[in-house]
């Protein structure tokens, strides 16, 4: 036990988790924005936008996240010299956020589209009939109802995103939790299993409230029909 507790004196576990929380927070916001725009493209009446939305979703959804994040580090940062901040670590951190956001935006788009499918066609017809164009009808009538119908699937995307933030290690964000876990296992091979369990438990604690919250919210905010 004393051995185990000494781990926390040598290694700053909460700080590593804090990196994952920050990665997830920013990536979730950008993914939500990009995913909403993509969903609008996919339900829009303009064929070229529909095509773009479908192409984006199919490309990013079907590419392993590891490859996207490794490309961010090796392709964008190292080869193409794309830098999003003056400082090396900050730049890698931001590139990882971009990679996570672009990848999960595809899933957000599909979650919102499933929410759009919960909105009866008559809602859109009624919106058009009072003279609203596509964008105002989407913003005022379709999306508010679609989001409420999409809370549970959006929650699933967020849960996946939090856990996937560990893949930022592939983008050389060395401060995040799975990287720290690797270091700890390397130096404290006597405590491999407790170390694994510690990090597993950390993510369970992070993720469980999100599941509870989205279940509660999707009930609370359900649109009565």
């Amino acid at each position, binding site marked *: 036990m004393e051995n185990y507790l000494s781990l926390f004196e040598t290694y700053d576990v909460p700080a590593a988790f804090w990196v994952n929380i920050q990665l997830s927070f920013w990536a979730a916001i950008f993914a939500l924005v990009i995913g909403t725009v993509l969903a609008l493209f996919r339900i829009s009446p303009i064929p070229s936008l529909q095509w773009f939305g479908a192409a984006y979703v199919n490309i990013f959804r079907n590419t392993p996240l590891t490859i996207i994040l490794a490309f961010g580090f090796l392709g964008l940062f190292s080869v193409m010299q794309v830098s999003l901040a003056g400082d090396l670590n900050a730049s890698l951190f931001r590139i990882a956020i971009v990679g996570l956001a672009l990848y999960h935006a595809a899933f957000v788009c599909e979650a919102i589209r499933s929410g759009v499918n919960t909105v*009866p066609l008559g809602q859109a017809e*009624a919106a058009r009939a*009072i*003279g*609203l*164009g596509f964008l105002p009808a989407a913003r*005022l009538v379709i999306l508010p109802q679609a989001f409420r119908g999409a809370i549970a699937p959006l929650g699933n995307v967020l849960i996946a995103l939090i856990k996937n933030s560990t893949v930022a290690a592939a983008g050389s964000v060395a401060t995040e939790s799975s990287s720290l876990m690797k270091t700890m296992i390397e130096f404290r091979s006597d405590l491999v299993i407790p170390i694994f369990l510690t990090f597993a438990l950390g993510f369970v604690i992070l993720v469980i409230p999100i599941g509870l919250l989205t279940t509660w919210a999707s009930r609370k905010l359900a*649109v*009565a*029909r």
Partner: protein
Amino acid sequence: MNKHFGELHVLRDINLDVARGEVVVVIGPSGSGKSTLCRAINRLETIDDGQIMIDGEVLPAEGKALAKLRADVGMVFQSFNLFAHKSILENVTLGPIKVKGMKGGEAKELAMSLLKRVGVDNQAQKLPAQLSGGQQQRVAIARALAMKPKVMLFDEPTSALDPEMINEVLDSMVALAKEGMTMIVVTHEMGFARKAADRVVFMADGQIMEEATPESFFTNPQSDRAKDFLGKILSH
């Protein structure tokens, strides 16, 4: 005008003029194309050829011009289609505020007076799902009226209602007709046709078979299809 759904020719050479202030009731058997005709008038259904003109303007195919013209055409649906996430009051004020740019206070005043006219002003803060079908449909009428439309389209407005709620909706429609609103009403309510219509249009198989005043249509139908139809529905 003409329209096809795949192989099916749903509207065949329809040619219909409705005068300002006229109330036209479209009746006919299921699948005769009467709802499609009604929905085509504000382009919820596209047409294959021909044109639709409203107050001298050709109905545009898409874009802002179409939205603008739709604002002048009130539509009441069979399934009400009130915005489910908005209160009754917001349902009625949405169009005036977002389409016409009316101020919030002014729109609210207009909405309350319209809701009062259809007798649901005491429900203004509720959500659509909390109202009965008849109340929802009357709100839908108020929502359409809030746009100050040049013509009102009713697509089987009472078909989804329980029998005891049909009259409250029909009463609102009769009142509207008396005020001189131009109306095109697709319905199975023969009583309404008799009471409020200036002209009855009988459709079958995508064609207009007969047009007449309600009086002469119901007492002396000319076409065999109309005689057959009336025989079936009036025998009880």
